[in-house]
């Protein structure tokens, strides 16, 4: 029986592609006394890495995943385990061709060589394919295969060469011990294994499909599910046997049948994502001894695969039906799926306990590097916030949620997914108190962080006629999918009268205690040492000066601050602030999200409406912009409500965010609608709040314009002065201010929407910005500009795009183009900083 060292600075659990990459990068970054354990034997301990098909397609619609993939490819290449083969994604339908055109947008945006090609082009490179089965293909010459086991061994050996790594295979973790810290926190102290205990202050769970089981040992949720990906191997095929090496023909992804065909020596591997979602519980994975092949190569269920077999045969009959070509190896291979398709990375709520899970071969080394950097510096070069374990809300940590969502999304692995596409399963998890009222108003609900948020109200459909073409109707189904012109009608009514908007999804937490000011000053860029009753809008940075968030802070008392941030990223923000509380425990963070509801009212009539409900002074003189205080509002049922009103706006209009206890929110909602009706106010959805309203004002959104790879300067958000107090990222921020920006966030307007076919097209975001004649632009980082946000600006009568441009292109009036579905549309730069296109002097807000 193997024995483990008694202590370690860091224990990495898992010796798959992620664990191996982690130990390499951790030792490279100077970590000492690293211990890596796995319950299996090396070099293939039996996890998902061992049966991976090991091919890498580089283009993904997600920049984060693409960057991790490109970094991984670079690492594989450096190790000499990458074989370039090229890859085709073929389309059998026109709808898929459109998706491939959209893929071209992503390829251009991320700077990856790719091209749309004809079936005969494919046939030339893959002579055994049936040309008449498909109509076109997306060709990525840089696609290739890797030897992920060899890569793992190389990285482990590099770590061993530093003298700081001890590898102990064939020991199984039996427990993860934690100890309690201040204000309910916990910290990891020990890893118990079948080979003894290891005292360690830092532990990383990189155990793939087993990660949830390990997470449970420490009481943390790692919400992934083991899921089956079926794969068979057919061979020997004479056409392949003649070639040298592992792969000579490009990999074919048959996108409409959710299959791939990948040469492996004389065999052709056919994999499928088309079958029903076959999920397992981590506890039901066999042990190494119980498994026939390996624990993650489960018995093949033929019936699930038969339809794909037929489709694969149609595509390559001469190859798959060749004399002597037999099906010898067929597995239900287990891999990890998450509710949103992203990995699970970062430090858990147990201090020192990290995870790097739900990672595929194509991202493995990149994830290893990013997490090692994060563990070392507190941030990574590649922004991985979409993969942060802190992103999960309570309801998302339920196994049921993961099961339902992955069941729904499995079939979408090769699917055509609209950028606004909504899940159908496990909805209605978090309902605002106004939900019933909103249903009656015909609200169309989109989900954010489990909250059901009205995106628009069918009750406002009557406004369409009133505004006519000003609602900018969209002709093309794709552009209009998950969208309604009612959004633009609500917008126009807000600008004309007022709108009432449910913002219950806001994540709200209070920081209270003697060091409360120090905490917010130390985390926020803006000056937080303001008078009680002031509201602060502020970026939050990491140490390298990248965005962690942007949010508002209200000073409610000398020692009491309230942080309000978006629901989607709220959990990560909460974890960030919690991580900056002093050790003493005298200052606390209290989550108010579930007991506080927020309702916004904005528009030129907002003051008239609010004053009709309150005796308090809500005039500009009595209730200035960026201030907050409690007011008394008449309820719809004749009573009085105490409301915390904050005069702020994300839509560029006069108005307030009104905070009330959840139990009174429905009452306030009705009161505002009732009082607003005579003034022409309507309920408006998040379509206005999140897109049209802010885009006209050039307001940035975290996750779109702002992320860890962007700076305040590049985002055009710097203020004349930097506060004296220290804060995270200050040093980097000061340096950024002194340097010339490498990219500039600009607002562009689309000059002509007419496509070659005469249909007017509307970009949805993610599209590349090119020169007028289609030339590539490159910023100072070597990145290519792409649309970070797109949407209607109904009050301007144009479609607005935000994009970071190379500084020399960031001039007002500069004429460029946006590529959408492989056609160019002329655009013009309208703003090169945060200056809004609408109401540049911000007069409407007063």
């Amino acid at each position, binding site marked *: *029986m193997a024995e483990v060292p008694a202590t370690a600075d860091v224990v990495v659990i898992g010796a798959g592609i992620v664990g191996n990459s982690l130990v390499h990068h951790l030792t490279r970054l100077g970590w000492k006394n690293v211990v890596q354990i796995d319950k299996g034997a*090396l*070099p293939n301990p039996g996890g998902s890495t061992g049966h991976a098909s090991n091919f890498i397609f580089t283009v993904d619609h997600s920049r984060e995943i693409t960057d991790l993939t490109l970094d991984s490819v670079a690492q594989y290449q450096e190790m000499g385990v990458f074989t370039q083969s090229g890859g085709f994604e073929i389309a059998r339908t026109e709808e898929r061709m459109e998706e491939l055109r959209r893929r071209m947008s992503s390829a251009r945006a991320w700077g990856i060589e790719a091209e749309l090609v004809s079936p005969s082009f494919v046939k030339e490179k893959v002579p055994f394919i049936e040309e008449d089965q498909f109509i076109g293909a997306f060709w990525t010459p840089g696609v290739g295969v890797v030897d992920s086991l060899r890569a793992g061994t190389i990285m482990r050996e590099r770590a061993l060469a530093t003298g700081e790594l001890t590898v102990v295979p*064939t020991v199984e973790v039996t427990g993860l011990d934690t100890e309690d810290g201040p204000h309910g926190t916990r910290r990891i102290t020990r890893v118990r294994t079948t080979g003894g205990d290891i005292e360690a202050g830092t532990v990383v769970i990189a155990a793939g499909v087993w990660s949830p089981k390990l997470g449970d040992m420490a009481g943390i949720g790692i919400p992934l599910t083991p899921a089956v990906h079926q794969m068979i191997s057919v061979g020997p095929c004479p056409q392949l046997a003649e070639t040298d090496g592992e792969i000579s023909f490009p990999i074919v992804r048959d996108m409409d049948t959710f299959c791939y065909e990948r040469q492996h*020596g004389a065999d052709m591997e056919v994999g499928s994502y088309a079958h029903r979602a076959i999920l397992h519980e981590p506890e039901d994975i066999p042990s*190494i001894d119980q498994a026939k*092949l390996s624990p993650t190569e489960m018995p093949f269920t033929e019936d699930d695969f038969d339809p794909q077999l037929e489709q694969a045969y149609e595509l390559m009959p001469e190859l798959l039906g060749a004399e002597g070509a037999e099906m010898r190896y067929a597995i239900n291979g287990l891999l990890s799926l998450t509710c949103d398709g992203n990995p699970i990375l970062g430090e858990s709520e147990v201090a020192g306990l990290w995870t790097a899970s739900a990672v595929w071969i194509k991202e493995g080394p990149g994830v290893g590097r990013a997490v090692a950097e994060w563990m070392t510096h507190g941030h990574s070069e590649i922004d991985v916030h979409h993969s942060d374990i802190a992103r999960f809300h309570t309801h998302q940590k339920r196994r049921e949620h993961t099961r339902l969502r992955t069941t729904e999304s499995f079939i979408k692995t090769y699917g055509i997914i609209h950028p606004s596409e909504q899940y159908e399963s496990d909805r209605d998890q978090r309902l605002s108190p106004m939900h019933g009222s909103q249903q009656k108003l015909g609200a169309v609900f989109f989900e954010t962080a489990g909250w059901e948020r009205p995106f628009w109200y069918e009750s406002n459909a009557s406004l369409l006629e009133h505004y006519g073409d000003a609602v900018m109707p969209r002709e093309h189904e794709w552009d209009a999918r998950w969208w309604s012109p009612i959004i633009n009608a609500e917008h126009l009514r807000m600008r004309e009268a007022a709108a009432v908007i449910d913002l219950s999804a806001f994540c709200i937490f209070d920081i209270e205690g003697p060091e409360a000011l120090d905490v917010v000053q130390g985390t926020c860029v803006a000056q937080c040492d303001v008078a009680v009753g002031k509201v602060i809008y502020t970026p939050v940075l990491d140490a390298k000066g990248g965005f962690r968030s942007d949010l508002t802070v209200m000073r409610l008392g000398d020692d009491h601050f309230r942080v309000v941030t978006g629901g989607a990223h709220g959990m990560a923000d909460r974890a960030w602030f919690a991580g900056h509380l002093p050790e003493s425990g005298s200052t606390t963070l209290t989550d108010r999200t579930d007991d506080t509801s927020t309702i916004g009212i904005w528009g030129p009539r907002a003051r008239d409406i609010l004053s009709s409900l309150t005796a308090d002074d809500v005039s500009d003189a009595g209730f200035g912009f960026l201030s907050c205080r409690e007011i008394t509002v008449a309820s719809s049922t004749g009573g009085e409500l105490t409301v915390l009103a904050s005069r702020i706006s994300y839509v560029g209009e006069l108005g307030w965010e009104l905070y009330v206890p959840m139990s009174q929110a429905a009452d306030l909602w009705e009161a505002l609608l009732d009082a607003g009706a005579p003034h022409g106010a309507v309920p408006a959805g998040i379509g206005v709040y999140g897109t049209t309203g802010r885009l006209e004002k050039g307001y940035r959104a975290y996750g779109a314009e702002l992320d860890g790879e962007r700076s305040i300067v590049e985002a055009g958000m710097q203020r004349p002065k930097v506060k004296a107090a220290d804060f995270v990222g200050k040093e980097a921020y000061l340096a950024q201010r002194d340097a010339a920006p490498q990219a500039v966030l600009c607002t562009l307007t689309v000059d002509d929407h007419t496509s070659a076919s005469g249909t007017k097209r509307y970009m949805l975001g993610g599209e590349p910005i090119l020169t007028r004649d289609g030339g590539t632009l490159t910023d100072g980082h070597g990145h290519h500009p792409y649309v970070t946000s797109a949407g209607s600006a109904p009050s301007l009568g144009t479609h607005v795009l935000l994009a970071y441009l190379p500084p020399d292109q960031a001039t007002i009036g500069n004429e460029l183009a946006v590529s959408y579905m492989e056609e160019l549309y002329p655009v013009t730069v309208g703003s090169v900083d945060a200056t809004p296109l609408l109401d540049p002097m911000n007069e409407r807000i007063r």
Partner: protein
Amino acid sequence: MILVLVEVSPEGEAVETSREAVTFARDLSAAGGGVPVDAVVVGAPGEALVGVLASYGVRRVHALTGAAYDSFSGAAWAAGLIEVRERAGSVVVTAAGTPRGNEVLAHVAARTGLPMAANAISFAGLSPFTVTRQVVSGAALEEMRLSERPALFTIAGHAVQAAPADVPGAGEVVLETPDVADADLVARVVSSEEPEPDLSGTLKSARVVVGAGRGAGSADGFGDLLELADLLDAPLGVSRVVTSLGWRPHHEQVGQTGSRISPDLYIPCGISGAIQHWAGCSTAKTILAINSDPDAPMVTKATHAVIGDLHEIVPAINAEIRRRRG
């Protein structure tokens, strides 16, 4: 009385598994109050055979003789066994769990309409009579009830160790010449010859065998192993997973259902050692297991082991052999 079918080797000796069966029958007899144990043999027994059976406590040796017994027929053997049993009235009819033993007892079971238990290793209770027998190639055990008389079962090889009795039996020889119907002689051996050396022949008789399992990793993962086999002048034997994946041909398979080997040295590389495989190699004198998992059954059952990746170890061994040979 307990009736035991005793198989006799071409040299005229009671085979070991049959002596085990007699030993087992004697233990059963002792537990059941000392009923006599009789043997049935095919062909007239030599003195030495009778002496051995007597030393094992056998009371009578019933010898089936006549033209029907010149060559093997399962039905004819069963007919004779039944005739002896009907005359002598045994409560148990048993045999070794060999191909012959199982076959003949199955014929007896089919002819009498009684249940039969194959490969018993012990008896659990006498009333109701319950045996524990090997199933799933010995990877699991079944407790099976045999409530009817005579109880029919065979005894798995090495379930007990063959041992003479404290008190020898009389060893009285009774020659029997049962009437055997023509129908029972339709399926009989018409010729029997020295086995032609087939592809797996070298495996069965080799002094050294190099084994390979799923640890080889792929069809391309056998180069070093074949080189080691060549250096040791040994054939390659593989586990069932390897043939079922098509990595190596079937005739190389070692195991319960493949070749059973008894070399002086067996070197299983990357074979976990499931019972299926173990059944085919357990009689090797020395086993050197090369495996990355120190807890793999093949390692714990081996006499010697090297822990690690066979793809690192085997080339090193090959190099070391070449170095010493100069």
